[in-house]
Each structure stands twice: as C-alpha cells, then as structure tokens.
C-alpha cells in the first residue's frame, strides 16, 4: 500500500532511501541500548569501567553512547515522518536497522573490546568463545541487512520501470 504511493510522489527516491537512514539510526541505537541494559545492567557481564581502558576507548565509548541515545529516538521520529508521508517501507527500514546494528556490534566487538580494551564481554577464562559468537552474529546481521536493502531496491526499480512503460 505504502509502496504504491511512492511512485506518485515527487520525492519518492529521497523518502524511499530515508527508510534506510531511519533504520540505521534506530538499529545502531537499539543494539547499543540492548548492550547497555542486558550486558551491563541485567547480566553484569560488562564492567562500567575496567582499569585496562585507554583514553581513546573512553572517548569513543562516550561519543558512541551519546550518538546511539540520540539515534534511537531520532530514528523513531523519522519513522513517524515517513508514515505521515505514506513512504514507510518496513522491509527497507529493517534492512537498514540490521546493517547498522551489525556494524556497531562488529565495531564494539573488535575495536572497543579488543583494541581499545574498554571492557571484555565477560570476565571468564574462555572469553574468545564469547568474542567469536559476538562477532559472527554481527557479520550475519550485516549480510542480512545488505541483502534486504538490495532486494527492496530491485523491487523499486521494477515498479519504476513498469510505470514508465
């Protein structure tokens, strides 16, 4: 229903792609939020600050946290904007969410945990198992998000060409 309206809209491509941006903001924010509530607050696996943290890690963590906080709320308001314009395409939005959520998780798992050493996933002997699971999930999310976005692009192009004929 929403995608039918897209073709008649003058700015259809802008709003069609804005689904990705909105999804990316929300996805990044949501993954960061789950990280904070589940791993910091509920399970207490992550530490608020462990003494191995480097100052770059502190800065990166602070900025990412602030950005994700803003992005979650901003992304949701963007959905509201897309919906009132009848240009919300859930599949494309979800693709953006997975892509950015996965990318953030991968960044968190490789750069923030391993290189900047902000904190580890869990303070146990075989932490490498946790690291692998963490990062493989991240890669799966990135691939799935990319595929979804690609598929909605193809659908859009088909519809666009069909209309012009």
């Amino acid at each position: 229903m929403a995608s039918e309206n897209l073709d008649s809209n003058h700015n259809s491509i802008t709003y069609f792609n804005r689904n990705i941006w909105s999804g990316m903001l929300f996805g990044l924010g949501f993954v960061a939020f789950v990280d904070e509530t589940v791993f910091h607050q509920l399970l207490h696996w992550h530490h608020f600050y462990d003494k191995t943290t480097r100052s770059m890690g502190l800065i990166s963590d602070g900025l990412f946290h602030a950005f994700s906080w803003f992005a979650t709320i901003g992304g949701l308001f963007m959905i509201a904007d897309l919906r009132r314009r009848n240009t919300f395409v859930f599949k494309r939005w979800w693709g953006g969410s997975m892509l950015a959520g996965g990318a953030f998780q991968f960044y968190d798992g490789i750069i923030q945990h391993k290189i900047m050493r902000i904190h580890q996933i869990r303070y146990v002997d075989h932490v490498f198992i946790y690291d692998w699971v963490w990062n493989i999930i991240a890669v799966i999310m990135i691939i799935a998000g990319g595929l979804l976005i690609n598929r909605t692009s193809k659908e859009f192009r088909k519809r666009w060409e069909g209309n012009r004929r």
Partner: protein
Amino acid sequence: MGREQKVMHGHIHPSNNEQMMLMLPFLLLIDLYIFAGVFSNRHHHSWPLHRYFFWCFGVLSAAGAVVGPIANRAHMDFTAHMTGHLLLGMLAPLLIAISAPVTLILRTISVKWSRRLTRVLKSCFFRVASDPVVASLLNVGGLWLLYTTGLYMAMHKSLVLHVLVHLHVFLAGYLFTVSMIYMDPTPHQRSFLYRAVVLVLALGGHGILSKYLYAHPPAGVPSGQAEIGSMIMYYGGDAIDIALITIFCFQWYKAARPRISSTYPQVN
C-alpha cells in the same frame, strides 16, 4: 578518618533558621510565576496549567540542591553532591525551560517593557551566548574544570566560590537547554542538524567526564564515593537526556511537516 574528610567537615552547616531563609527565594519565585500567570490571564488566553507544574517542580528541584538533606550531605559526600548537581544543572533547567518563563514575562509586563526585553534578547551578546557550541562549552566545559582541577576542593572552603559554582551550574545548564530546544521565543535560531551535532558532542563530553571520574576522583573524594557518583552522573544524565532529545525531535517533527506545495501539483 582521612585528612580530606576533616577539611570538608570544616564547612559550617546551616541551622534550621538559615535553611528557611535559603528556601525563601525559591518560594518567592514560585509565587511570582503563579501571580504572573493569573494576572496576565485577564488579557490573554489562559496560561496552561501544566506549565505551572513544570515551573514549580523545576524551582523545587533547584532548591533541592541548595537546601535540605541532599545539600547538607553534599559537603562531605560526593554521591550526594552529584545528585544535587543533577537536580540543579540538568533537571531544573529542563523543567524550567518547558515552563516557558520568558513567554510569561513578555505577556505579563507592559508592551513598552516587553519591547525593551525583546531588544535585549536580540542583542549580540545573546546571539553568541545562545549558540549551542558556546552554551555547551560553558556547560560541559565548566564541569570538566570543576572536577578535574582543584576547584572542587576550593569550592568547599570558600562560601563565595560555592555560591558562584552553583549559580554557574544552573545558568549554564539552562542556557544549554534553551540553546537546544525552543520553548520560548528564540530570536537567533539554529538549524536542527547543527543543534543535533552539537547536542551529541556535548552529551558525549558529559558521558566521557563521568566515566573519567570513576577512575580519577576529584581531589579529596574517596574512590568508593567517586564510583557511585560517576554512575549517578552517567545514568542520571542519560535519563534526563531522553526527555531533552525527545522534545528536540518532536520540534523537528512539527517543523518538518509536509506542506502542500504549489510548484508541484499533487498526483493522488
């Protein structure tokens, strides 16, 4: 008991009478607002009831940092100090900004005086001060200065410094809030994107400082208190930021509403 503790105990606790005296200006502010609202209702639309509540809670949370149990414990307990600062520098400014005090003043005073006030608000000074970057530097930069230099220790020894720091924390917090969300008439408006970028950087600076304090307490603060205080600053700040960001985004949502364009005919 450590040497630091003794120094902090040097501060004189206000007696009950002094407590009442300290509370007076806050009660006066509440009275003034209610009076202005009721008084101006004679010539204008009825001033919304929710704004009275926002003002009252805003003034009371600022008072909570200056008078009462939190303020009394703040002299020797960093955790209490941080709770007070959260009330004074973040919650009170937000609630007061939502209560739109400038709008209320403008409609209460005479046209001649409100023109004068508007001229002041339009001045070069306020243009610079209301810039999100300047407001953020005053707000978050001031906190870095307070907690990473000897200022925190000095504040507990000098009454003048104590009052000045608290005044700065509130005013900078208010300036920061109104530079991001526009509840009152704002002559020098900035774009949403610019404000959003500065807001994220400022919130980041706040978060970085609170985690930094976890491992590097200000001079004279025991590490146990610093750890809890730092978490109060971090998570308490986050909680208030949700409200600030939501209002900010809602204002964008209202401003970005689709308008029927005359250049491009709507095909539906």
